[in-house]
C-alpha cells in the first residue's frame, strides 16, 4: 500500500477523534472539541472532514468526495487521491456505490441509505459566531439554550429584505435542543438533514466535531408567518432537464449568455446516461470529454 499508517493519522490521534465522534453521536448537534492536527493541506481545504474520514474509514470502504456537488474539482480530486494513497480504499464518483462520502457544501441529490456515512467539511461550526465572537459566551448560550439572538438575526433579515435572506448555512435545531450550523450547504438541502445515514461534521481549524445520528429530528429555524422555504433557481437543468435538483448558474460567454446545471455532477451524469436531455444539452456519449 504505502509507507503511511492506515489512513495517514497515527493511532492515538484516531482514538481521540473516535472518542469525540461517539460523544457527538450521543449528544446530537453539540460541538465536541478535539485536538485537530495539522494535515498536509491548508485550513479551509477540508482538514476537519479529512480527519473525521481518516478515523472512520476501513479498508473495505468505497470513498467518494464532492466539492459543491462536483466530483471533479481540485479539492475533491486531491482528497480522494489522498485516501487512495494513504488508506488504499476504493474510490467512486457514484453516490449509490459509496460507503463513505466526504462533502463540502452539498448533500447528494440521491437519498442516502442506512449503510452510508456522510462526512461534512465545516469552516465555522458555531452558528452563533457572527453574532457573538466570544467562545466563552457562545458556550454559555448553548448551555442555557439561549438562542434568542438567532431569531433576532432571522427577524432582521425579514425587516431588511422582506424575507429570510439567509440562503446557505441556514441554522437548524437538532432534536429540540442544540442550534447547529449545517455547514454552508444551501438551505435547499436542509430537509435532507433528516436521513437514514450517519452524518459527521468536522471543523479542522476550529477544532470541533459534531454529529447527527440517523432519523434525528432536524428543524430549520423559522417563524409561523415566515415559514422555512428550501429554495433553488427557478429553472430546469440545461444539461439533464432535472426539475428537482439544486442548480449552479454558469456564465458561458461574454455576451451575458448563461446556463443552469445540476451542482451534483453524479446526479446529472446518471440522468444523462439514462437518456434525459436538457434545453442546452446533448445526448450522453460514453467517450465524450
Amino acid at each position: 500500500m504505502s509507507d503511511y499508517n492506515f489512513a495517514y493519522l497515527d493511532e492515538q490521534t484516531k482514538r481521540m477523534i473516535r472518542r469525540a465522534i461517539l460523544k457527538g453521536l450521543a449528544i446530537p448537534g453539540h460541538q465536541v472539541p478535539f485536538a485537530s492536527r495539522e494535515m498536509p493541506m491548508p485550513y479551509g481545504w477540508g482538514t476537519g472532514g479529512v480527519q473525521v474520514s481518516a478515523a472512520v474509514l476501513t479498508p473495505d470502504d468505497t470513498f467518494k468526495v464532492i466539492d459543491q456537488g462536483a466530483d471533479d474539482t481540485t479539492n475533491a480530486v486531491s482528497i480522494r487521491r489522498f485516501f487512495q494513497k494513504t488508506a488504499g480504499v476504493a474510490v467512486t464518483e457514484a453516490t449509490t456505490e459509496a460507503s463513505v462520502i466526504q462533502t463540502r457544501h452539498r448533500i447528494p441529490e440521491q437519498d442516502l441509505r442506512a449503510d452510508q456515512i456522510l462526512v461534512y467539511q465545516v469552516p465555522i461550526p458555531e452558528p452563533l459566531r457572527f453574532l457573538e465572537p466570544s467562545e466563552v459566551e457562545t458556550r454559555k448560550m448553548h448551555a442555557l439554550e439561549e438562542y434568542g439572538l438567532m431569531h433576532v438575526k432571522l427577524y432582521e433579515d425579514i425587516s431588511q429584505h422582506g424575507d429570510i435572506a439567509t440562503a446557505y448555512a441556514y441554522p437548524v435545531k437538532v432534536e429540540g435542543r442544540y442550534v447547529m450550523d449545517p455547514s454552508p450547504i444551501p438551505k435547499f438541502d436542509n430537509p435532507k438533514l433528516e436521513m437514514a445515514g450517519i452524518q459527521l461534521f468536522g471543523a479542522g481549524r476550529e477544532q470541533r466535531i459534531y454529529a447527527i445520528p440517523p432519523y434525528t429530528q432536524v428543524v430549520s429555524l423559522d417563524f409561523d408567518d415566515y415559514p422555512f422555504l428550501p429554495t433553488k433557481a427557478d429553472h430546469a437543468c440545461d444539461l439533464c432537464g432535472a426539475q428537482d435538483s439544486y442548480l449552479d448558474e454558469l456564465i458561458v460567454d461574454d455576451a451575458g449568455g448563461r446556463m443552469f446545471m445540476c451542482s451534483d455532477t453524479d446526479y446529472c451524469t446518471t440522468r444523462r446516461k439514462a437518456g434525459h436531455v436538457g434545453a442546452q444539452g446533448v445526448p450522453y456519449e460514453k467517450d465524450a470529454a
Partner: protein
Amino acid sequence: MQAQVLEGGFADPSIDAAYAFRAVMIAMARPGEIVTVAGAQPPAPLSAAAGVVVLTLCDPETPIHLAASHDTPQLRDWITFYTGAPFAEARHAMFAVGAWDDLPLADFRLGTAEYPDRSTTVIVERRNLSNDGAVLVGPGIKEKAALSLPETQAFKTNAKLFPLGLDFIFTCGERLAALPRTTRVT
C-alpha cells in the same frame, strides 16, 4: 507479570481498530442495534467485545474505572500493557467497565452544561444481549427498537438529564450494543 497479559491484543492494530470503531460507531448511532466485533482475547472476566472497545478507544489519556467484578490484577496488567490507560476512581473515569450490579452509577461524571461530552462511557458486561425487553425510542431509531437491558429505571433517569448523562455500551461475548443518553426507554 504473567505471560497471558502479553497476549490477546489486536494482531494488526491499525486495521483491527478501524473495523472495531466502525462497529462501535454504528452501535452508538443506532441504539439497540447489536453488532459483532473481533480481534481481542482479553483475560477473564473481560469479554472479547469489551476488550475490543478498550483497545479501540482507551489510551494514556483516558482514565478507566474497573468495577469490583472486573478489578483483577491480570486484567489491570493486560489493559496497562496494551493501552497504557491509568486506573481511576469512578468520579475521575472517562470509561468504566463492569457488571451492572457492581457499577457505581451515581459516582460517574455526567459532563458539564458547557461540555456535556465530558461524561463517562460505561461498558456494561452482560450474560445475554438480545433485541427484546425494553422498548427504545429516540435519535438513531427509525420507529422503535428493543434491547435486553438490566433494568429500565436507571436509563429513564439518565435520559432526563439530557444533554448531560452517561452513555452505555453493553457487551456480551463478541457482540455489543449501545444506549446513548438520548434514548428514551420504556
